[in-house]
């Protein structure tokens, strides 16, 4: 019972860490914090990178370790590559926060090469119009593409469906 409560406390501490590039969501809402376990008194957090070359991965891991230490745990990070992170792991709450922040959350189940030449319809996070156009496959960070709303003329980031 005590161990379970401690584990829950460790999860809370780790989960509160915001994503450094998308600070409106935390690592649990983004789905990259997979689990936190207590192993011989050490809090071990499993973290899955969003992209192979995500430059924020190391910073995120260090922040989670620091948050666990702050909460009084000895801490260690385990990088979990398998299964690979997908945008499907972003929680409902996370999606809502992204939208409020001005980033369109991923629209569809993470696809494969259906993506090949396939266009998705993306909803503008500002005005809700689906009359939007892609400006660039690659946006301000590796995980986002850049779009523009044709209705309200606002440019916005779109979380890539991967």
């Amino acid at each position: 019972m005590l161990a379970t409560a401690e584990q829950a406390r460790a999860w809370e501490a780790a989960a509160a860490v915001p994503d450094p590039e998308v600070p409106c969501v935390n690592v649990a809402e983004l789905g990259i914090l997979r689990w936190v376990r207590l192993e011989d008194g050490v809090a071990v957090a499993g973290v899955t990178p969003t992209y192979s070359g995500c430059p924020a991965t190391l910073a995120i891991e260090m922040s989670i370790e620091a948050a666990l230490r702050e909460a009084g745990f000895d801490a260690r990070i385990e990088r979990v590559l398998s299964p690979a992170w997908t945008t499907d792991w972003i929680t409902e709450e996370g999606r809502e926060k992204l939208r409020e922040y001005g980033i369109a959350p991923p629209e569809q189940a993470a696809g494969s090469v259906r993506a090949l030449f396939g266009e998705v319809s993306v909803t503008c996070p500002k005005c809700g119009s689906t009359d939007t156009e892609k400006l660039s496959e690659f946006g301000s960070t590796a995980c986002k593409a850049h779009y523009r709303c044709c209705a309200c003329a606002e440019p916005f980031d779109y979380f890539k469906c991967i």
Partner: protein
Amino acid sequence: MAIYQALLELADDHLVLGHRISEWCGHAPMLEEDLAMPNMALDLIGTSRTLYEHAGELEGKGQSEDDLAYLRGERDYRNCLLVERPNEDFAHTMLRQLYFAAFMYPYWIAAEKSSDEVVRGVAGKAQKEMAYHIRHAGEWVIRLGDGTDESATRMREAVDALSIYVDELFDSSPAAQEAEAAGVLPKRADLRAEWDKTIAQVFDEALLTLPAVPFAQRGGREGLHDEGLGHLLAEMQSVYRAHPGARW
């Protein structure tokens, strides 16, 4: 250490191509592409890092990813020749990217059945990134191939220049053959039909045809490279070689 060597070949492909396209950073013709190039480079370099780290662990001699990336000379690099070809113009750059991604996409899908857990982990993520690269590079090949007289000419020149490097993608070195037999890596030769299909789909829209290749250029897997790789490595490795053991 066949598996170490085979993983190194794979990692070298990704690092060298990643470094090549990163050379467009600050030089691309428009802001969107100036973002796209480093983004794609990050995917490739990120993949190479995991592979180097894993290769170093399997070798068991304490070589880190930095040691493997920064302290080997061009004769020790085992990347295929396609990935070291110079950027030239957007036609060359995007065709090279399309050729590579059209190979790696089915490769990583097949690698999901690998007996090696790290390879499986890399495969899950990298196949999605390669699908993205196929789409992005494919759209450019179509735009340029079916574009102006100038862009179409350049696209055809790129096809002529790069097609002799395609066959090497499907060759397996003796080390790779061992890794394939052990179920660690997919058989390269099996991926030809899928590659042909992807390229045909793009070339059809781009008004391009794949030329017959009278002579396929090979040698990268034996460490025989164009002098351009030496220049690339000199730039990439200079800081680490000036400050051995530096960490960042």
